[in-house]
C-alpha cells in the first residue's frame, strides 16, 4: 500500500490498486452489514475505525512518498476516507422532533462544507483537469447540445426515481397525504438539496476524479457503486436496481460531459420522486 508512486516501480500499482480497492469495498460492505444486522452503534464504530485508520494511512503514505507534492497514493487514501466519514455521520446525527428528515441536513452540511474546503486545497490539484465544472461542459459551455444533455440526465434521474418508488411500493402514493404530514417547502428542500444534491456533489466532484485518475472508466464504476452501496443496505435488492442504474448514469454523465448541473438536478429529482412514492423513506 505504501509503494511510492514515482516512476521507479510503475507496474506494481495496478494490481496493488485492484487489491486495495477490493479490500476497501469489502470493509465498507462489512461495516454496512454490521450497521444493519447488529446495530447502528456497532456499524458506526466500524466506520469510525475505518476513517481514523485511513487518515493515519494517508499520513504514513505522505511521509513515505519520495516526492510527496507529486505523489498520488496518499491523495487516493485521503479521498478514500470520505465514504466512511459519510456513513459515520449518517448513522450518528441525532433525529429531533421539529421536522421530518432533518438528519439529512445534519449529516450532509458537514460533509459538503468539508468537501468544499478540500476542493480549495492542493490535495486535489493533480486531478484538476478531471474535476467537473458546475455548468460549463467540456464541449463548449452553455450551448444547446450541452444543456440538452444535462437536461436529459436530469430527466433520467427523475424517471429512475419514479421506477425505484414504484418497485418499492407497487402503486402510486397520494401526494396530498404526504404533504399533509409535512411542510411542503421544507420537505422539498430537504429531499432535493440535502438528500440528493449534497451526496452527489461529494462523490462526483471529489471522489470520482480521484477514482478516474487511478482507474479510468473502472474508477467511474467503482465510485458509482460505492455511492449506491450507501443505499443498498436499506432499500433491498429490487429497489437497488434503479439506484445502481442512476448512480452509473450519473457517473457516466459527469465523466462524459464534465458538468455537474444535470447530475445534481437528476439526483434531486431521483430522491424527490422516490420519497413521494415510498412510505418507508419518511418513516
Amino acid at each position, binding site marked *: 500500500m505504501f509503494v511510492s508512486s514515482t516512476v521507479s516501480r510503475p507496474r506494481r500499482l495496478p494490481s496493488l490498486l485492484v487489491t486495495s480497492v477490493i479490500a476497501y469495498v469489502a470493509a465498507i460492505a462489512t461495516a454496512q452489514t454490521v450497521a444493519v444486522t447488529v446495530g447502528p452503534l456497532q456499524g*458506526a464504530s466500524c466506520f469510525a475505525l475505518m476513517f481514523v485508520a485511513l487518515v493515519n494511512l494517508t499520513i504514513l503514505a505522505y511521509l513515505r512518498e519520495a516526492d*510527496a507534492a507529486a505523489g498520488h497514493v496518499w491523495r487516493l487514501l485521503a479521498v478514500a476516507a470520505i465514504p466512511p*466519514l459519510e456513513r459515520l455521520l449518517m448513522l450518528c446525527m*441525532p433525529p429531533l422532533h421539529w421536522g421530518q428528515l432533518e438528519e439529512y441536513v445534519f449529516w450532509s452540511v458537514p460533509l459538503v462544507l468539508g468537501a468544499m474546503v478540500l476542493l480549495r486545497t492542493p490535495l486535489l490539484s493533480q486531478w484538476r483537469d478531471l474535476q467537473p465544472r458546475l455548468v460549463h461542459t467540456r464541449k463548449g459551455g452553455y450551448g444547446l447540445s450541452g444543456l440538452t444533455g444535462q437536461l436529459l440526465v436530469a430527466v433520467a434521474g427523475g424517471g429512475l426515481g419514479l421506477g425505484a418508488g414504484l418497485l418499492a411500493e407497487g402503486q402510486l402514493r397520494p401526494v396530498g397525504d404526504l404533504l399533509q404530514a409535512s411542510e411542503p417547502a421544507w420537505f422539498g428542500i430537504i429531499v432535493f438539496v440535502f438528500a440528493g444534491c449534497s451526496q452527489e456533489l461529494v462523490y462526483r466532484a471529489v471522489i470520482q476524479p480521484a477514482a478516474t485518475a487511478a482507474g479510468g472508466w473502472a474508477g467511474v464504476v467503482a465510485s458509482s457503486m460505492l455511492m449506491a452501496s450507501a443505499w443498498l443496505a436499506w432499500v433491498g435488492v429490487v429497489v437497488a436496481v434503479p439506484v445502481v442504474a442512476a448512480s452509473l448514469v450519473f457517473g457516466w454523465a459527469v465523466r462524459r460531459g464534465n458538468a455537474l448541473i444535470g447530475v445534481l438536478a437528476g439526483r434531486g429529482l431521483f430522491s424527490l420522486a422516490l420519497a413521494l412514492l415510498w412510505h418507508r423513506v419518511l418513516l
Partner: protein
Amino acid sequence: MNILADGSFAAPLGVRNLDQIYFLPLVVLLVLLLEREMIRAAGGPRARAVIRILDMAAFPLLIAFLIMVALRLNQVLTHS
C-alpha cells in the same frame, strides 16, 4: 431508583434522549485533535503538512459537533 438507568437525571435539561452513538463523532474528533497536538509537539520537517491533513479530516467532524451543540442548546432553551 437508578436515575442513571432511566435517564431522569437529564430531564431538567431536556436531553434525556442522549444516546452513546451521538458521541461517536466527538470521540473521533478528539482522537484526531490529540494526534494533531502530538505531531505538532514532535515537530519535524513535514509536520506542518501532516497537521494540514489532520485539519481537513477534523473539519467536518467539528462542524457536526457544532451542529449538535447548537441543537442541544436550542432544546435546552426551548424547554426552559
